[in-house]
């Protein structure tokens, strides 16, 4: 399938669904090493996003849709994840601005811009036990797939799988950013909630290709 506005809207709709489905799980993870609101925060944001999806003009591009997600998340989520995901979608939108359809290079540019936006705002490095631990392997896997000549769907699959593995790999880490950093050693054995929601969003991008 072509990764056009239809796919982008399907991705966003699936994102809202999957976040709503995992609301309690995300909050439970956050209760263990944060303040127990990540699911609530993300769901508030993506519910607002879902509502606005219908309002997108008929000739909107994928970049327009991503920008709507960005501004909606920024203005509804709050907390740490609001500005971080907001910036990610804003930079992603910028990377593909004007394109009607996204090819493999666009996807890699989009994911890279999103990751860089999160780093710019949050200053986290890989291994700090944050959402960056999902995004960085995702960007790398996507770039590798593109270099290996894989198609768009395969690139998205590579990114989602890498994000899921990266998220799981946060379990043994001590956190150095966000609320979990207050816990020191006590964070060990818990998965970072922001990395889980990040992986869910990237998996939704894959699933949207079959909608």
């Amino acid at each position, binding site marked *: 399938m072509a990764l056009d506005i239809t796919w982008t809207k399907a991705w966003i709709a699936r994102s809202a669904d999957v976040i709503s489905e995992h609301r309690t799980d995300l*909050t439970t993870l956050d*209760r263990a090493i*944060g*303040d*127990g*609101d990540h699911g*609530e*925060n993300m769901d*508030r944001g993506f519910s607002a996003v879902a509502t606005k999806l219908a309002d997108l003009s008929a000739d909107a591009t994928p970049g327009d849709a991503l920008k709507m997600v960005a501004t909606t998340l*920024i*203005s*509804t*989520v*709050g*907390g*740490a*994840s*609001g*500005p*971080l995901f*907001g910036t990610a979608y804003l930079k992603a939108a910028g990377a593909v601005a004007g394109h009607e359809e996204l090819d493999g290079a666009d996807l890699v540019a989009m994911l890279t811009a999103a990751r860089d936006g999160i780093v710019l*705002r*949050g200053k986290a490095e890989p291994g700090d036990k944050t959402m960056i631990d999902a995004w960085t392997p995702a960007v790398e896997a996507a770039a590798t797939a593109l270099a290996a000549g894989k198609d768009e769907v395969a690139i998205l699959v590579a990114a989602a799988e890498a994000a899921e593995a990266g998220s799981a790999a946060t379990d043994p880490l*001590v*956190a*150095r*950013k*966000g*609320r979990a*950093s*207050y*816990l*020191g050693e*006590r964070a060990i054995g818990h998965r970072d909630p922001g990395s889980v929601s990040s992986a869910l969003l990237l998996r939704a991008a894959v699933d949207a290709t079959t909608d």
Partner: protein
Amino acid sequence: MKKLINDPKNVVEEAVTGFAVAHADLVTASFDPIFVVRADAPVAGKVALISGGGSGHEPLHAGFVGFGMLDAAVPGAVFTSPTPDPILAATLAINSGAGVLQIVKNYTGDVLNFETAAELAEAEGVTVRTVIVDDDVAVKDSLYTAGRRGVAGTVLVEKIAGAAAQRGDDLEAVAAIATRVNAQTRSMGVALTPCVVPHAGEPSFTLADDEIEIGIGIHGEPGRERIQLEPADQIVDRLLAPILEDLPFASGDRVLLFVNGMGGTPQVELYIVYRRAAELLAANGIEVGVSLVGNFVTSLEMQGASITVLKLDPELEELWNAPVQTAALRWGR
């Protein structure tokens, strides 16, 4: 969970509505987006002070909006930083041209949302400075954490910087005073019971019947250690020792001693804590010049308390004592 609320979704909006009606002489509230400003905002020629953060810490911050303290407070959802929109709207509502000082508790969410709002405000021509409050010695301040948390000391920063702005200091001077207060302030808290965020409906953490959490954060974040309940005097010793070491405070210092209730602790207990803290300071040759005891930076109905010590100098003490007229702190007018 038993609470005097209606729909958990409406807690903040309904509470702000009640607050604004009860204190209509002091504040005006806006609801879309939600923020509270001084009734006489913008105050011509005065540097404007804005603070905010998750709700559930009342009277922080709206209770400190008024003459000699904050110009605006921006309440987020319970324990969740507000988004940039209301921060921006409040900033524009209080800016008189003399610039706006953001006072932000050091949590990633608050820092990022206020930062975004500041960028948007600057884009609209408002000069913005930001002071981050990070007084909680329970958390190690190192490159390997998000840094210390901002807790009860926030009130002291807001009061003293507010007095500096009220007397006519310019933006850089007010920011410098706020920075100085934060640098000279240390806090640490203890929780006896957890609190329940209304929309979550279950406690943010659990403590056994004989357990307490030393070094608790104001959102129920874990602290330094979980220990068996002890007599109040021993608990005070545990809280005050790291505070005194950290600056360090020394014999001959004159300080402000602030015993803060977490929301669910009876006042008799706060004064029992105060008594021991004052006794210990005296034993260390430290003179208490100013005292503050009460529920000022709370965690909903959490039982517990925090101790804050600010090293005074004549200017800070004078600014502390300057008139203030807010819902939660008032003297001199």
